[in-house]
């Protein structure tokens, strides 16, 4: 079953077309990747799905319900969580509080509940804290609950962002470059964590990633964007062998030169890996 469906979705910024007539289908329970050179429209697509941008045209269906143009918080309540390319934690709140904010939309207490604190609210609070602690432990931040988010090391900040997104109880999780800036060991750990999210929690994952080792290593389906349009789609092997993809990454001349050689895909891997150093 298709969890997320984009039908001929476009986004224009003035005269600039960031995404044009994109069709995309994310099946329930898969790990899918969105790749493409810088400026290909990947993050724009994410921002449309999570409600930060309103699509210029086209339909966006989540569980067969239209979500295009919904406010971000409504999208989150429908069951789509996300992380950000440049980490956007609540820097001056503790790790635990960050996760509790993620839980907010699943709690009920209003202002009167906060003031009067009846037993139902008390109980909800206790449960929420336990749940937040559980999520922190799950991503490997068990002992860091009281640390301010900005004092965490970089790799752990990325994990905290995932924990915070998990707290919103998502069916689909959008990860925007989850391993950017990580060292090789951290990258391997992050890949393992992403796999666990799907295997153990049953969360469907869509990720943007530049590191080809990560993309090829964990995705079951890859969509390649270039200049806002889909140029290829398929399993990692299919995408790796697609001449259009190699062209998008390396330029036309290179492709003609390499045509027929088996080294093209190896070169693609190298090129993309070099791109992550930014």
């Amino acid at each position, binding site marked *: 079953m298709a969890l997320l469906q984009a039908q001929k979705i476009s986004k224009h910024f003035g005269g600039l077309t960031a995404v044009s007539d994109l069709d995309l289908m994310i099946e329930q329970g898969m790990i899918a990747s969105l790749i493409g050179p810088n400026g290909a429209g990947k993050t724009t697509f994410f921002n449309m799905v999570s409600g930060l941008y309103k699509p210029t045209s086209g339909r966006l269906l989540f569980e067969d319900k239209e979500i295009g143009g919904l*406010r971000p918080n409504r999208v*989150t309540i429908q069951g789509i969580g996300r992380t950000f390319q440049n980490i*956007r*934690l*609540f820097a*001056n709140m503790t790790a635990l*509080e960050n996760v509790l904010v993620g839980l907010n939309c699943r709690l009920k207490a209003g202002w009167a509940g906060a003031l009067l604190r009846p037993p139902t609210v008390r109980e909800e609070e206790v449960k*929420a804290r336990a749940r937040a602690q559980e999520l922190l432990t799950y991503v490997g931040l068990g002992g860091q609950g009281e640390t*301010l988010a900005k004092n965490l090391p970089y790799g752990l900040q990325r994990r905290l962002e995932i924990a915070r997104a998990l707290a919103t109880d998502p069916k689909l999780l959008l990860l925007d470059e989850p391993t950017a800036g990580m060292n090789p060991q951290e990258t391997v750990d992050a890949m393992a964590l992403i796999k666990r999210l799907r295997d153990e929690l049953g969360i469907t994952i869509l990720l943007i990633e530049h590191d080809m080792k990560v993309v090829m290593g964990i995705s079951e389906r890859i969509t390649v964007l270039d200049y806002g349009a889909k140029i290829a789609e398929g399993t990692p092997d299919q995408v790796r062998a697609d001449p259009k993809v190699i062209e998008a990454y390396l330029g036309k001349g290179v492709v003609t030169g390499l045509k027929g050689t088996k080294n093209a895909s190896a070169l693609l891997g190298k090129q993309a890996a070099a791109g992550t150093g930014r």
Partner: protein
Amino acid sequence: MRQIWQSITAPWRALPARQRTIITGGIAILLLLVFPAVDKSMKWQTLNDVTDVLVLVILALGLNIVVGYAGLLDLGYAAFFAIGAYTTGILTWPPHGLEFNFWIVIWAAVIVAALCGIVIGTPTLRLRGDYLAIVTLAFGEIVPIVMRNLGNQTLSIGPWRLMENFNLTNGVQGLNPVGRPWIGSFEFGFDPTPWYYLILLIAAFVIFANVRLQDSRLGRAWMALREDETAADCMGVDPIKTKLLAFALGASFSGFSGAFYAAKLQAIFPELFKFNLSIMILCMVILGGMGNIKGVVIGGMLIQLFDRVLLTQTTLIARGVGQTLHIAQLATVDLSLWRWFFFGLAMVIIMVLKPEGLFPSAARRAELHAAEESKTAETIG
């Protein structure tokens, strides 16, 4: 010296934090409760001023929700105070023939102030930072002007006269008298003691509400919005609803203050609610430590006590010294004329030495000293 001090305070510091809070809190409450008796027996005659100080502390606590928790810079907070006071005035001014009971009116003032919070909040929701500050500044200017102009209004559309000499606020003269509270057959009069206990009760309620709100689902949503509105929105926090609640709840506390102040002063007029007042309240919040209840209360009290009690007392002392030493300038000095000078000086000193306020919340301290820490780390590294 330091060692002696540490050995004296060692048993105190060994106590669990919770017990220490209970003990210091208990002592503070006790001191506040016996203060009127002490004031009377010592003939300080400061009770009236201290009562007014508490009115402003409550205002600062209300503003703390908007500025400290939700991070919305509001430069026109005195407008809500004015709305609370005028609601009380309009509902109890004898010429209006309403003369409602004060205990009903105070809640009406709270509700009207909260509604006005929503009214000012709604159009400004999409504004951030500086823009919001400017709009609230304008709102703070508009409200007293409206109050001044709502005396003797005649409104006609074509041949129909909707209002003729309709006097809601009595213009520049303001509303006088305003209804006083009664308990049974006892009327709150010129003795400041019952007023003091009433404002203490209101302050206790407002502090309680601040504490509860801070540590709640709503409080966390406010802080998340303050930290990063986009991220908070993406985590399921509804920014519109959450900001409106901050405006409404923050304003409602000033409704309490406004109703109390109007009834105690027995008269309200537009001049009371000028821009200075908004800035004064904001300074109380910033100086004490944004987002920290203890900081706001103590910081607010310090500013106000300095302003109202210390300056007048020092004036008296300086005059006494001037008279005994026969220095004419000193004998007639009035330091309270210099209040804004001292006030400005104190603000500058504190902002330079302790930008996070006297009693910062942990988060604020971290925020403002992060730059220094990283600098130190670089030097060491």
